């Protein structure tokens, strides 16, 4: 029998040898990672932690739900406008009247794992369950679902709610689950669907990728790709490089890269813009002693050169904003009504208000684009005699500063740069500025009985022309307060190979099952 012994000399020699072994990678070569054929390679910006529609964070989980779960409706796009249409999971989906939506599920849809056919009872279970979930707000207007047959039923709203199909049924919260499978799973789930019914099955390797494989039980239209590999790449810049290295077929791009690509598009690549459902503005606290005079606020509106911000901070990649309703949505304004860039008018208004030597603080999140925008505003306002101090903040204190429940900072707020995201319907964007939001999200702190009334009317109104008029008037009211300088709508833009057609929700979630081969 041989006895293994360790000597100090032997140990030192082994250490060096082991170190050398560590340098042996490099054997694989490029061929190992380049996959072709019916595989689509995409980017996820993080792991999907909770796939359950009731408890998700609301990002890429929705992309997974769209591939693996039935929905009654999906987004459509005609020209620059967003709308909806029934999915191939339904035979009919009809809004019978303002509070009743009838549906009949398509025949032959079955859940994986032997959970049987997709039924109207599953729809009832899924939607009524959402009323108790973290995403209950989306189902606030829904009273119940009536089952009228194995595959048919009626969604009953408690009050007319025009955006219901668009913002609830088309969006992640509108996913349908198998009652039996979810119940067996304990009522909730995280990283594994209890049962799927869609073109793809789902698997995840935490920290690395989510893999969607063609579902052998799927009886609906065959998707263009047999397999989707969604790689977890946190940083958008890393994803852009991976695209340029040929390892991704599609990825979101940042504003500066979008500008670079538009000037010099990589070979075999093109850009698809999913939507621009973000609105950014500079807000003013109408209750602050320095800003109570509407002439001062109007002067500030006239003094800011928004075009310079779009070029200087966003490389010309974003759309100029004229209000809170985003491009493609009912009620988007074509122009501002009460101000334009006019420094002379700003000086005149300041003189009229007797506001000489005014100094203000502009608070912003400490991101590159916002800081650049803040500095341009600082220069603009300096040119008309207003000294501005830029105060960059981390997200913690930033998001609390206008909320009365979080301290007294709201009393000191003067100017701030703010960006909200929204759904593809005008109702949500307008919801943050009603009187009851003062001290919560209406940091400008104005109130208007007319605005509050129009908000309720807009939710209930189903005639598009009347709704458009309502939302245009609401934005007029906002602008007339002098408390807003509209800045931009940032796009959700994707670069992809010309070999594929990209389909994405207006808010940027990709829908792989609707992708095509060009």
């Amino acid at each position: 029998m041989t006895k293994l012994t360790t000597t100090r000399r032997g140990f030192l020699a082994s250490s060096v040898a082991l170190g050398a072994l560590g340098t042996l990678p490099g054997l694989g070569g490029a061929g190992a990672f380049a996959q072709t054929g019916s595989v689509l390679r995409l980017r996820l910006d993080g792991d999907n932690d909770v796939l359950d529609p009731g408890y998700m964070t609301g990002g890429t989980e929705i992309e997974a739900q769209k591939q693996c779960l039935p929905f009654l409706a999906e987004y459509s796009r005609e020209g620059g406008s967003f709308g909806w249409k029934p999915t191939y999971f339904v035979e009919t989906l009809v809004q019978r009247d303002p509070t009743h939506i009838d549906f009949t599920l398509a025949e032959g849809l079955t859940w994986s794992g032997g959970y049987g056919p997709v039924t109207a009872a599953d729809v009832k279970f899924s939607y009524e369950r959402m009323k108790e979930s973290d995403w209950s707000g989306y189902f606030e207007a829904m009273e119940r679902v009536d089952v009228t047959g194995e595959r048919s039923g009626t969604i009953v709203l408690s009050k007319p709610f025009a955006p219901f199909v668009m913002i609830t049924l088309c969006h992640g919260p509108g996913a349908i689950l198998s009652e039996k499978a979810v119940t067996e799973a304990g009522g909730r789930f995280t990283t594994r669907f209890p049962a799927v019914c869609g073109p793809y099955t789902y698997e995840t390797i935490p920290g690395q990728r989510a893999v969607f494989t063609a579902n052998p039980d799927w009886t609906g239209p065959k998707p263009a790709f047999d397999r989707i590999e969604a790689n977890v790449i946190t940083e958008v810049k890393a994803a852009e490089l991976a695209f340029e290295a040929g390892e991704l077929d599609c990825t979101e791009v940042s504003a500066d890269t979008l500008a670079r690509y538009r000037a010099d598009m990589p070979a075999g690549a093109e850009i698809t813009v999913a939507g621009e459902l973000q609105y950014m503005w500079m807000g003013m606290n109408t209750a602050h002693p320095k800003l109570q005079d509407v002439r001062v606020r109007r002067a500030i509106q006239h003094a800011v050169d928004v075009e310079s911000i779009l070029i200087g901070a966003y490389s010309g990649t974003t759309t100029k904003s004229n209000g809170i309703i985003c491009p493609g949505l009912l009620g988007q304004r074509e122009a501002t009504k009460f101000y334009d860039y006019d420094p002379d008018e700003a000086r005149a208004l300041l003189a009229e208000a007797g506001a000489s030597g005014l100094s203000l603080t502009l608070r912003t999140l400490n991101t590159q684009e916002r800081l650049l925008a803040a500095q341009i505003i600082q220069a603009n306002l300096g040119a008309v005699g207003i000294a501005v101090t830029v105060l960059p903040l981390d997200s913690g204190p930033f998001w609390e500063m206008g909320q009365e429940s979080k301290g007294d900072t709201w009393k000191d707020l003067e100017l701030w740069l703010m960006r909200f995201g929204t759904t593809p319907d005008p109702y949500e964007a307008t919801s943050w500025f009603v009187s009851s939001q003062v001290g919560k999200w209406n940091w400008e702190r104005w109130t208007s009985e007319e605005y509050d009334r129009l908000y309720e009317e807009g939710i209930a109104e189903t005639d598009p022309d009347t709704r458009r008029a309502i939302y245009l008037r609401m934005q007029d009211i906002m602008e007339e307060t002098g408390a807003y300088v509209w800045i931009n709508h940032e796009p959700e833009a994707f670069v992809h190979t010309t070999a594929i057609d990209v389909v994405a929700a207006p808010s940027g979630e990709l829908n792989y099952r609707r992708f095509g081969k060009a």
Partner: protein
Amino acid sequence: MLVYLTKRLGLSAAVVAAVVLVLFSLLHLIPGDPATIALGPRATPEAIARYAEKMHLDEPIWVQFAIYVGNAVQGDLGLDVFSDRAVSAVIAERIGFTLALVVTAMGWAMLLGIPLGCLAAVRPNSWSDRIAGVLSVGTIAIPSFLVSIWALLVFAVELRWLPAIGAGEPGDPIDQLAHLVLPAFAVGLSWVGYLARMVRASMLEVMNEPFVRSARAFGLAPGTVVFGYALRVAILPTITLIGMGFGGLISSTVFAEIIFARPGLGKLIFDAVMARNFPVVQGAVLVATGLYVVVVLLSDILVAWLDPRVRESL
């Protein structure tokens, strides 16, 4: 040796305890309501209340600390805010990728750095010494994130010789090794310089020792003198440096893992910070600190084992 071990273990435990205290304090000093920060500004009151209860935020701070420490010593690092999974399980999935990266990076740094240091020391102030010096300082001076980006641009984007992102196909070691090349190069490069400088300095001392002169006088080949006699003694301080280097490399992996989209402890910490997933931040930093302390401890023990004089110095 036993006394040395006891003292050294006590010191290591004290370092870990201090890190736990500082980390816990720092995370609780961040301005803003932790629940709002973690769940985002639009979180529902119900979700915020649930989070506060889960994280014991309604308890006094010292009670929160006692609960955290009590759980941590039992291996319970809490729950991921978003997935509700055990933080220890999340870390266990990732730590292997970071260790593979660190070991590979340090391995090739040793393979290049040690001979480079020897080359410089054999003929001090010669051209070879000067070139080695320039290479050493140059590799130390270039930040690893820049090396990562350049390596990615040249070898993945332009030449397409090596993969740019990920850790390779599970179950395919060749593919996984290919995915290690660029990040290991980026992470290990600066340590080529550190090791070369350290080996050079040690070798210069050793090369004038009587036993080296004797070896030369007996007519042994220069290679045998350098690698067979001098390096064995000169490498002792290098072992300590390598131990500390592992700790430094764990922090360097943050950049490499982000840029190369590799799963690992560094990327986990980065993602958790960005998402304000504080239990994961606390757990992952604690484990990274523990790793650092263990590696330094092991290297110190090895040096003490190899050189009895060190045991008396603590």
